[in-house]
């Protein structure tokens, strides 16, 4: 009798366990193998981004977009505010940058362009998508564009309609000229209302003042750069007139008394709370502020005093995204940016953040709040200009733009002295950065178009 050891023997417990283990193992390996094969065909992208800090809901939007995207596996990483630039530049220098990088406007990303860390987007992204995203002229260098717009930051002046009513002013017709502004301030003051201001202890108000007023003296953004590289001079009355106007407001007693000791946002809150007539703000606050006041916050362009060609135009700054020069798959990265600019993703952006995406493809009818809709019509859908303070070298920003505004408001510096200080700091910047002066000189060509 021959044994038939295999099939004829009873199926014992050990045998059962061995078979089961082999089966489960095989299934597990099989299930691993299939996605690995699939993943090998799907590009992997890394995206370093920022913005949740200023736009709550952006994280949810990014996560949702990444999860729904099938053409590539995108790994997003939210960056800390303090390291947005340095982290990218260090990684790029080490040859390990993310494929997609969040980029602030102007000099905040242009240095990376000059170091060779960013890829031009024209040619990678469709011309139509790029233009629709409003990357602004500050993203251009050497005829190339290095950022796509992601979300806009309209720079507005708030005014409180209830306080305008109380002072006998027309709440539907805010002042447009400097003379009208002084008249409005005078009437507000007479009515016992602090007319204008905000908070500038942290310095940002001084920067915004330059965004709104310095630009009024310029014909092109390139003209601002000429002041830094020494082709023009802040001692010229035309280029420090904005500080002289600030001095005038202080001298006339139109600025709120606690302005030097308040920070930017508590200062804006004063307008919203009905304690201050007018003040500088940012468009992304409007949905919440309008809701809080039942639409009694109006937005206006800063009244005009300057004679430059950029005077009186609404200002829109844009946060953006770019592609690293060291990206292993720039085409896949560009495809993901195209995906973020599809109408469906633009609508998803609005739903997740309550704010607007930077794209002319976005359907403005989706905006429900009348104040926000009016603001977007005037700022986003009309001819606008960019924020020229983004052109300032960091050294000038810290040592001239901020301190001058603070000291003029306090009365420890006149507008003219502010011009002298700015001229001196611009000279120091040139001494400290001879290599960057050359780059700025090249940049003027793009900025003056």
């Amino acid at each position, binding site marked *: 009798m021959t044994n038939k050891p295999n099939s004829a023997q009873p199926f014992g417990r050990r045998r059962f366990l061995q078979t089961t283990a082999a089966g489960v193992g095989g299934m597990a390996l099989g299930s691993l193998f299939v996605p690995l094969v699939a993943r090998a065909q799907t590009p992997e992208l890394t995206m370093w981004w920022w913005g949740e800090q200023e736009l709550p809901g952006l994280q949810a939007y990014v996560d949702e977009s990444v999860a729904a995207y099938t053409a590539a596996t995108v790994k997003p990483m939210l960056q800390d505010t*303090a390291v947005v630039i*340095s982290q990218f*530049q*260090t990684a*790029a*220098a*080490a040859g390990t940058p993310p494929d997609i990088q969040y980029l602030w406007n102007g000099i905040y990303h242009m*240095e990376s362009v000059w*170091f060779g860390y960013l890829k031009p987007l024209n040619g990678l992204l469709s011309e139509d998508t790029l233009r629709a995203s409003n990357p602004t002229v500050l993203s251009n260098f050497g005829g190339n564009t290095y950022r796509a717009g992601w979300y806009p930051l309209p720079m507005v002046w708030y005014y409180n309609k209830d306080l305008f009513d109380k002072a006998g002013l027309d709440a539907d017709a805010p002042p447009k000229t400097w003379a009208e502004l002084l008249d409005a301030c005078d009437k507000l003051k007479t009515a016992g209302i602090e007319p204008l201001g905000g908070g*500038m*202890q*942290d*310095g940002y108000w001084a920067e915004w003042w330059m965004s709104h007023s310095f630009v009024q003296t310029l014909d092109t953004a390139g003209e601002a750069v000429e002041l830094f590289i020494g082709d023009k001079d802040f001692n010229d009355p035309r280029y420090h007139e904005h500080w002289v106007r600030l001095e005038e407001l202080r001298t006339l007693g139109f600025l709120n*008394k*606690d*302005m*030097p*000791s*308040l*920070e930017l946002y508590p200062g804006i809150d004063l307008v919203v709370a009905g304690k201050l007539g007018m003040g500088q703000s940012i468009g992304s606050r409007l949905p919440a502020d309008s809701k809080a006041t039942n639409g009694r916050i109006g937005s206006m362009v800063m009244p005009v005093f300057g004679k430059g060609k950029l005077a009186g135009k609404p200002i829109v700054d844009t946060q953006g995204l770019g592609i690293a020069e060291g990206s292993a798959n720039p085409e896949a990265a560009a495809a993901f940016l195209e995906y973020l600019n599809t109408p469906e993703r633009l609508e998803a952006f609005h739903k997740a953040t309550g704010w607007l995406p930077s794209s002319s493809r976005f359907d403005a009818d989706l905006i429900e709040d009348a104040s926000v809709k009016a603001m977007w019509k005037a700022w986003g859908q009309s001819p606008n200009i960019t924020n020229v303070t983004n052109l300032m*070298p*960091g*050294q000038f*920003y*810290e*040592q001239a733009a*901020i*301190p001058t505004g*603070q*000291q003029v408001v*306090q009365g*420890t*510096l006149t507008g003219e002295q502010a011009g002298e200080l700015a001229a001196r700091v611009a000279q*120091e910047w040139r*001494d*400290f*950065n001879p*290599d960057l002066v050359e780059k700025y000189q090249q940049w003027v060509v793009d900025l003056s178009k």
Partner: protein
Amino acid sequence: MTLSRKLTPYLYLAPMLALLAFVFGFSILRVFEFSFKMVRGIDGPWIGLRNYRLVLSQPLFWESVRHNLLLLLAIPAMVAIALLLSLLLYDRLRGWKIYRTILFFPYILAIPIIAVVMKQMFQFSGPVNEVLRWLSLDFMALDWIGSTDVALWTVMMLIIWRESALGVILFLSRLLSLDESVVEAARLDGANWWQRAWYVLIPQMRGVIEFYVVISVITMLSAVFAYIYMMGGGRGGPGTSTMVTELYIYNALTRSSLPGIASAVSVMLFVVSLALIYLLFVVRRRAGGEGA
């Protein structure tokens, strides 16, 4: 003493020295190297002493140094306050242990927390000025953090308040370790509180007072960043009225993209701090000799 016995303590120290060299050594060498380079990104060309020349010719740098030196004026006040409070606590007033905890409390709290609270308190329309106005002391209701003339003194007040707490604990520890019979003898001889403090207690605290002064000098010159950053709107403001060398370094590095300049100032600050630390060791050795 044999060679091996001489080497023994150094062998015990060796692992820690190796660890410190590993963590800080390379960084410090790079800072020295960067101070002679025009660094862009992570490296740059050698430019000799140019960074030092640029820094030393800039008014803002000297203004920063001047502010650090002005902050040294806080030290006599800190010593006086800490001495007075520790002597009062040493008298073991009813509930002195609770007072001791309360007095040390500011030192436990993180600087950003107390600075944020202080900023609220010292706003032009804040509680401090409201109280002053209520008391008809309007002339004293200053723009504490918004005025370039006053802001540095306001920061100094905060520093005095918080750093004195460390002095109280140091001084009280020393007092509690003194031989009480000497104080008792003075008391029996008819010495009043002031005489006991001035002629008996304070002379025996000389070592710890010197120690406290030296670490306070180091603090004022190279460890006030958190106070200034929080109180000065993150910028040493208003204007540049609270700018100090640490913030100058921070700004040069992170806001002006000038690592070479930041390194040059860091090297200068490092050398000054090293000299002060050497002084600290001298003081401590002397204090040790006195049994402090």
